[in-house]
């Protein structure tokens, strides 16, 4: 088994006067359950034009698999952004330089596909998927 450690820190010196914000959390990424480390990963980057989608789909039957997804919008134009979501349910925007890191589990059908859609501009983004056991990338593309 491999040991993959994810650490997030969130800080601000001016969010709350007199009380600097310093959040830190670290986690070893595990397969389903909490004792076996993840072994598989996939990393890549893509460019998508305004209005087009890029989909990452888990194969059906991989119910409740424990995976992790990192996405960062590497576009340099600050007006450009992409949105991420599950199937047709878009969750939030990633402007240039923004990143996200979430667990990815396909407990129900809609959760098995994560979409990235360019809303303004031709955006470039990078992604990494850390995979639990029997993982199959069913779709990667627009």
């Amino acid at each position: 088994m491999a040991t993959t450690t994810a650490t997030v820190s969130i800080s601000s010196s001016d969010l709350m006067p007199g009380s600097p914000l310093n959040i830190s959390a670290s986690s070893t990424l595990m397969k389903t359950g909490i004792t076996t480390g993840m072994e598989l990963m996939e990393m890549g980057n893509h460019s998508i034009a305004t209005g087009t989608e890029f989909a990452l789909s888990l194969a059906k039957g991989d119910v409740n698999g424990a995976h992790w997804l990192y996405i960062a919008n590497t576009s340099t134009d600050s007006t450009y952004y992409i949105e991420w979501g599950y199937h047709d349910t878009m969750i939030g925007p990633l402007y240039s330089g923004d990143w996200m890191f979430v667990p990815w589990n396909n407990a129900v059908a809609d959760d098995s596909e994560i979409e990235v859609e360019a809303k303004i501009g031709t955006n470039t983004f990078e992604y990494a998927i850390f995979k639990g056991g029997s993982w199959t990338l069913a779709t990667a593309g627009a």
Partner: protein
Amino acid sequence: MATLTPTLSLVCTDATSDELNFSVTDTLNIAQKVIAPSKVKLSTGDLTLFASSAYSRSYVYLKNMDDTIAMDVDFGSTASFNIAAGEFAFFPWHASQNIVVTADSGTPYLEYAIFEA
């Protein structure tokens, strides 16, 4: 307006021959509501952690504080992920759906924070 600096690092030395070791950081402008790190006890019933009507575009931090119990994070009624014991998430949310949290069992604690852009 305040500045928020989130940083993510991912390190793995033994999955591939090319060691993974990277870090990404961002600078976010926060102009509206903030809930600094807080803690709530969950149950197996739904808890609306963030109501869409109360927020605009925001950044959300969640961490499962429990050692064994996982919890579901739902966006409205159609999409969700599951945070295992000790794990965390950080993501942007445009507040189109409520964020609803539920314990898989028992009464684990969830740490959360939200920063409205």
